[in-house]
């Protein structure tokens, strides 16, 4: 699935992945790819601005975490507001996809 089709649902996908536990950017993208069976194909670097936006909206929070002596990673985790937003978007997605299925099937 290419970028344009994914963009409208990116927030929900990112929240769903981070909901499982704190993850750094690379791990989030890998998990997204793994769960979608490789179907979600976005340029990986474009995910980070979306993560930053979700953080500005207080749906995620992040902090640097040291990995070895000379490396660090930015680790993202879901906030309470992020959890509420995830549930809300998931409900909306289910209604939408259910309606689509009914029409298209």
């Amino acid at each position, binding site marked *: 699935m290419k970028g344009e089709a994914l963009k409208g649902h990116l927030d929900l996908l990112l929240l769903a992945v981070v909901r499982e536990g704190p993850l*750094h*950017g*690379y791990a989030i*993208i*890998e998990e997204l790819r793994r769960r979608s069976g490789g179907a979600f194909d*976005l*340029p*990986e*670097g*474009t995910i*980070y*601005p*979306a993560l*930053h*936006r979700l953080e500005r*909206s*207080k*749906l995620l929070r992040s902090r640097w975490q040291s990995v070895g002596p000379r*490396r*660090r*990673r*930015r680790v993202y985790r879901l906030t309470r*507001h992020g959890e*509420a*937003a995830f549930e*809300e978007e998931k409900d*909306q997605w289910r209604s939408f996809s259910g309606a689509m299925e009914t029409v298209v099937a």
Partner: protein
Amino acid sequence: MKGKPIEDFVRRLRVELGEGSEEARLVSEIEDHLADAAQDAMARGTSADEAWDRALGRVGSVAEIVASARAESAPGPAWPDPRLLGVRAARFTVREVKMIKVSVLALALVTSALAALVGFHGVLFDDGSPIWNLLKVSASIAVIGVGALTWSQLGIRSPNPVRALFGGALFLITAGSAGAVWTWHLARVTGDFEAWALLANLLILSQGCLTAWHSYSRFAEQRS
């Protein structure tokens, strides 16, 4: 070993994104991402050169990342995200919103009339201290002002509510709560319970709550 293509890519990204702490963080995260992706590939047996090339190929072009950063950092509405307050826009029915709107308009009329009465009384008849009278008159004018704003925004022109209306609602909540508590306190201390004052302040408080709810729900509706 990163190699020149990676260094060139990061340098170009840094230049294109420009200066700023947010941009610096993005560049740093992309660098980390490339390193993680290359390490991953090498751990699976890919040669170093090929691993870095593959990482670079998957991260996207500088132009794509910059375009995404610009799009995601575009200023949104000046209001906070309704999700922060747990507002579920989809749950409001048209009938509910209309009912609240009518109640807000009715309350605005009643509280404005009461405020006019209190202000008028404070100027002409009250024998309290000048500061107390000034406070009452100012509060009355403010309540009337919010009432007029409410009618201009919801009753007459009926556009989308403005931020000032939300500010006005917060003022009513504060003033109504303070007035009700003060009236209750005076009743406890002096034994003189002014039921009408308590009622007026509770009406102001209700108007404030409903106005805040209404304007915020309208905003949530627009956002959704």
